[in-house]
C-alpha cells in the first residue's frame, strides 16, 4: 500500500491557561491519502481547528503546546518536530491553508496581486514577471476574469465571495499536495458557498490536491467529502466513508447530530435535541466524553476508557456499546 500523504499519530494539543490546562485535542490519529477529501466535522470546541492549526504549527505557543504526537508528511518529514526552517519550505508551498474569514486573513495594506504572488516569490525560483503571469492565470481559474486589473486592487474592494476566491488562488498557486480548509464557506451566503465549493472541487480535480475540510455543517460535508472524521471533545469518535457516516452511523453522537439538523426534506413537529452541553475540556475525562449526553449510555460508558476501533470494514467508532455489539444505530 502506498504511504499516505499525511499520517497523524497520537496528536495531543493543550492550552496552558491561568485556569488550568485545557486539553483541546486528545491523542488522535488519522491519515490523509493523496488526492482525497477528508472532512472533519464537530461542534465548536471539539478541537477540529486546533488539530489542523497544530499541524502547521500556527497555534500561539504559549499558551498552546503540542504534548505528543507525530505528523508524517509524505512519508519523510515530521511536521511537529521539524525545525521552523524546514517547516517553512513546506507550508505555503506543499501544504496551504484557507481560513474562515477572508477579510481578516488578507493583508488590507497590500494589493491583492502582490499577496497572490507572494508564495511563489518566497518559495520558487520564478522571476517577478513569471509570478505575475501565473497569478493572473490563477485568478482566471478561480473565476476572476479581469485579473489584470484586479491584481492592482486592495482586499476591501472585493466582496466576501471574491475574497475567498483570492484566498483560494493564493493557496493553490504553488500547486500544493495538501490544502487545509478551515470552514472556508461559513462566513458566506449559501449561493456563494455553492460557488466556492464547486470551485474548490474543480481546482482539486485539476491539481490532484488532497483537502482536509473542516466544517460544522453536515450538509456541506455530505456533498463534498470522500471520508469524514467526527470529532467530539477533542477526540475522533467516528471515522468512515461519507456515505457510511450518514447511512450507518456507528456512534450515538454522530446519529444525534444528524437528527438535530432541520432539514429541507421534512418538516417535523419538534426538532431532536441533544440535552446538556459538551464537557469542560480542562482536566481529565473518565470514560466516554459523550456519555453524560448519550441516550444509550450505561454504567461502564462513564467508567471504562474508550478507543477508536474498527467496528465494520473501514468504519471506526469510539462507542463501547457499538464495539461490544450491544446496540445498533441504523436509522
Amino acid at each position, binding site marked *: 500500500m502506498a504511504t499516505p500523504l499525511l499520517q497523524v499519530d497520537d496528536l495531543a494539543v493543550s492550552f496552558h491557561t491561568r485556569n488550568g490546562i485545557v486539553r483541546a485535542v486528545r491523542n488522535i490519529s488519522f491519515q490523509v491519502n493523496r488526492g482525497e477529501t477528508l472532512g472533519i466535522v464537530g*461542534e*465548536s470546541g471539539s478541537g477540529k481547528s486546533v488539530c489542523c492549526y497544530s499541524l502547521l504549527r500556527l497555534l500561539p505557543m504559549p499558551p498552546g503546546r503540542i504534548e505528543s504526537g507525530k505528523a508524517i508528511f509524505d512519508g519523510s518529514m515530521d511536521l511537529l518536530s521539524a525545525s521552523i526552517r524546514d517547516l517553512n519550505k513546506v507550508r505555503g508551498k506543499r501544504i496551504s491553508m484557507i481560513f474562515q474569514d477572508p477579510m481578516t486573513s488578507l493583508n488590507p495594506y497590500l494589493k491583492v496581486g502582490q499577496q497572490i504572488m507572494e508564495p511563489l516569490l518566497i518559495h520558487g525560483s520564478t522571476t517577478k514577471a513569471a509570478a505575475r503571469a501565473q497569478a493572473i492565470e490563477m485568478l482566471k481559474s478561480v473565476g476572476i476574469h479581469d485579473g489584470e486589473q484586479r491584481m492592482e486592487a486592495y482586499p476591501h474592494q472585493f*466582496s*466576501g*465571495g*471574491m475574497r475567498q476566491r483570492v484566498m483560494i488562488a493564493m493557496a493553490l498557486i504553488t500547486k500544493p499536495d495538501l490544502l487545509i480548509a478551515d470552514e472556508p464557506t461559513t462566513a458566506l*451566503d*449559501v*449561493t*456563494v*458557498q*455553492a*460557488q466556492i465549493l*464547486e470551485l474548490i472541487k474543480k481546482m482539486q480535480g485539476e491539481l490532484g490536491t488532497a483537502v482536509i475540510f473542516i466544517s*460544522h*455543517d*453536515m*450538509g*456541506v*460535508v*455530505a*456533498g463534498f467529502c470522500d471520508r469524514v472524521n467526527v470529532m467530539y471533545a477533542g477526540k475522533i469518535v467516528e471515522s468512515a466513508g*461519507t*456515505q457510511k457516516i*450518514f*447511512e450507518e452511523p456507528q456512534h450515538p453522537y454522530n446519529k*444525534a*447530530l*444528524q437528527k*438535530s*439538523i*432541520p*432539514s*429541507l*426534506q421534512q*418538516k*417535523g413537529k*419538534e*426538532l*431532536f*435535541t*441533544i440535552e446538556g*452541553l459538551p464537557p469542560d475540556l480542562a482536566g481529565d475525562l473518565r470514560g466516554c466524553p459523550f456519555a453524560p449526553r448519550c441516550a444509550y449510555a450505561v454504567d461502564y460508558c462513564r467508567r471504562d476508557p474508550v478507543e477508536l476501533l474498527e467496528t465494520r470494514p473501514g468504519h471506526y467508532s469510539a462507542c463501547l456499546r457499538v464495539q461490544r455489539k450491544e446496540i445498533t444505530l441504523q436509522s
Partner: protein
Amino acid sequence: MNPFLQIRELKTHFPISKGIIFQREVGKVKAVDGVNLELQQGEILGLVGESGCGKSTLGRSILHIIRPTSGQVLLDGVNLTLLEPEALRSARKDFQMIFQDPYATLNPRMTVYDTLAEAFRAHFKVKGNAIKAEVVQLLGKVGLPASALNKYPHEFSGGQRQRIAIARALAVKPKLIVADEPVSALDVSVQAQIINLLAKLCRELGLTLIFISHDLSVVKHIADRVAVMYLGKIVELGPAVTVVERPLMPYTKALVSAVPIPDPVLEKSRKRMLLTGDPPSPINPPSGCPFRTRCPYAIEKCAQVVPPLEDFGTQFAACIRIREIQGLESVGSSRAG
C-alpha cells in the same frame, strides 16, 4: 378582521454623504424598498435572503429601532410611524427583539437578575419581591434554573445566553417579537434546542414572531409563512413548505438549490442551479427586476418592468416570466422523462 401587523409600502433608505465640512448627499442605500406585509396574531413569518438584502433592516424598521424613511407600520391598529418618541417608548413593551449574538447583546457587568429586572422596571410599576418572583418564573419559561439569577453572562454557554436574551424579550409580555438570526451563532445541537424553545413559546403565549434567517431549512422548520427578500424587496411570499418545496421565483429556486442537504446520495445526485457573481449593490440597483443581473431566465423586458408581487394561488412571487418558465420546465422534464 384586521391583520395584527400591517406593513404598508415601508421604505428605509440610508443617505450616503461626502465631504468633511459641507456634507452633501451623494446617494442612497435602499436597504428596504417598498415592502408590504400582513401578519395574523400568533403567526410565525420567516424572512430569508442573502446578507445585504435588507432583512435585518426590515426587522428593525418594523420595530422602529431604525425610523423608516416612509411607509406605515400598524401594530394591533396603532400606527407606530406616527407615534411621538415618548409614546413609542411605552408602546415598545408590545414588541421586542432578539439579536444574533448573545455574547454582544447582554451586558457583561449585569447579572441575569439585573438584566431581566431592568425590563420589568422600565415598563411596569412593580417592586422588590414581586420582580424576583416574576424573574424566576421567566427563567423557568426559557428552561434555565433559578440558580442562574446571580450569575453573569460569561458564566453561560452560547445557547444559555440566547435563552437569557429570549427571557429578556419576554419580560415585558410582548405581542410581537422580531428575532434576527437568533440561532446563527449556535452549534447545530444547541440550535435545535433554541428553535424548539421559540416554537413552544409562540404556541403557548400566542406570540407573533418574525424570524429572520439566512438558513432556509431552519425557516422551513419553524415558520408558517416565508418571505424571500432580494435587494430590499420581497420577491416571494407564501406558506413555508410551498415556497421551499415548489419555489416559483428563479431567485428562490437558486437559494433552495444552494442549501446543502445532509445526505450524500441526494446531495450528489441533485442538480444545482448555480448563480454567478454576487448580489448587486443596493446603492445603484439594476433597473426593472433586481435579480435580472444574475438570473438565468432574464430577457430584455426584465430590465424595463419592475415585477409586482403577483398572486399565483399558492404563493406570491415577483417575476414576469414565471408562467413561461414553468411551461419550459414542464416541457423539459417531460422530455427528460
